[in-house]
């Protein structure tokens, strides 16, 4: 019997700009997907198997990235669905929204425990974009359950406020201990890259993604939809994926294969089909 296709809702807030490519990446990885308007009828959200908050600039980043979207009614509905164990991935601005809701890291229910602060980069300020090498720090999440520990996925980052910080003593160590740090910025060889440019924003412990304790809600700053196909990977990139891309040059079937960000989409699919289980 054929596996059923998970249904994923991509939530669009005013000012977001990555919903279409996020939906395409989901469709390309064996799932169906709709774009759901932030002010749409929330009762139908329960019909979906999972949810993605894509990147962009919800409400034009007014007040602070993610701050206003976090107050919307649709987020309350996602909160309820996430409590049922359904997967919810926030990408970039979506991650900023999730942190502003307290869903991530979620070790104290409903409490905002972290912030995504403005990038700190030597000699520069503001918006920054580059291919970041992201090392899998935990496979116990809906964004990484189809990966292997310590795999290195090159995925683009593009943000001005992506530095994971907390004022809570010991929280980051607690997250690391419980496998809630999902991705860390690394060098191409996989060694954790604490310093710029490997860590592109000064994030504590080079954190690129964090999950809730159950692993079904993930806030990630890198954009997997921008590296979901191999053709999106630059030929100049170092590491395994750069080599794969160079080998595939001129072969359209190979270039149309899944890229490193595709593993995030595949993880989302697998998480829906197999449940959150007990991967930690």
């Amino acid at each position, binding site marked *: 019997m054929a596996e059923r296709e998970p249904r994923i809702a991509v939530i669009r807030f005013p000012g977001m700009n990555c919903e279409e490519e996020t939906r395409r990446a989901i469709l390309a990885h064996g799932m169906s997907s709709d774009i759901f308007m932030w002010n749409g009828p929330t009762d139908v959200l329960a019909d979906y198997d999972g949810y993605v908050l894509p990147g962009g600039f919800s*409400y*034009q980043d*007014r*007040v*602070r990235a993610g*701050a*206003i979207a*976090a*107050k*919307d*009614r649709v*987020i*309350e509905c996602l*909160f309820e669905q996430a409590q049922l164990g359904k997967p919810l991935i926030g990408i970039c601005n979506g991650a900023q929204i999730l942190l*502003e*809701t*307290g*869903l991530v890291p979620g070790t104290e229910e*409903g*409490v*905002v*425990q*972290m*912030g*995504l*602060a*403005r990038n*700190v980069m030597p000699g520069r*300020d503001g918006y920054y974009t580059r291919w970041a090498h992201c090392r899998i720090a935990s496979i116990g999440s809906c964004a990484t359950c189809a990966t292997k520990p310590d795999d290195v996925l090159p995925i683009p980052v593009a943000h001005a406020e992506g*530095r994971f*910080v*907390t*004022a*809570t003593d010991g929280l980051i160590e607690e997250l690391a201990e419980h496998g809630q740090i999902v991705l860390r910025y690394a060098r191409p060889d996989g060694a954790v890259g604490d310093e710029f440019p490997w860590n592109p924003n000064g994030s504590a412990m080079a954190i690129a993604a964090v999950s809730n304790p159950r692993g079904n809600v993930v806030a990630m700053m890198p954009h997997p939809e921008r590296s979901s196909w191999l053709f999106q990977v630059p030929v100049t990139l170092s590491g395994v994926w750069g080599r794969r891309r160079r080998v595939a040059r001129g072969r359209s079937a190979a270039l149309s294969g899944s890229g490193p960000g595709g593993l995030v989409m595949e993880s989302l699919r697998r998480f829906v089909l197999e449940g959150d289980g007990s991967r930690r």
Partner: protein
Amino acid sequence: MTERILLSISLKVPDNEARSALEALRVKMGFGELFTGLVREELWELEFDEPRGEALARAEELVAKTNLFANPNKHRCEVHAAAEWALGDDLGADEASIVVADRGHPEGEGMLTALARVGAGGARTARRFIVWRIRVARDIPRDDHRVIPVIERVAVTTSRTTGLFCNPHSQTARVLLPWGEEKVLVA
């Protein structure tokens, strides 16, 4: 000698960011008509190693010649010596200010570097604050026990439903009240 100079910058045109924030307070967070107005201002605090008069003149020159602090086509900018003017001095009886700054971000260094690049040095340090001047539906008496806690609650984000202007993990916040009192909420 160190002289602190304050640049108070606001928009001459309608401020969509303040409108969105007020809408979030009134509709999304359910405060309705309790809050009747919101104005956003940017405050730069500059330090100069010069006497007050020269520091004021130099700050005015930085504003006028660089456009790095304000664009005269859409902003108004007031230049004050900190010793002679305090933020919140002009608050109405029905107003309070929430002052927010980023923590752990070397924004001032960026501004000093930018000033140096255009040959407009002179300031020793620079620090930026966002001031949210919030108006409530009635005057705030000194012995108020109802409105002040609400203002403090909307100032700092502690949960999805509580707080808007400051994320305490990355920012600091203080509240200025109309009779000159200042309360530090997040240091």
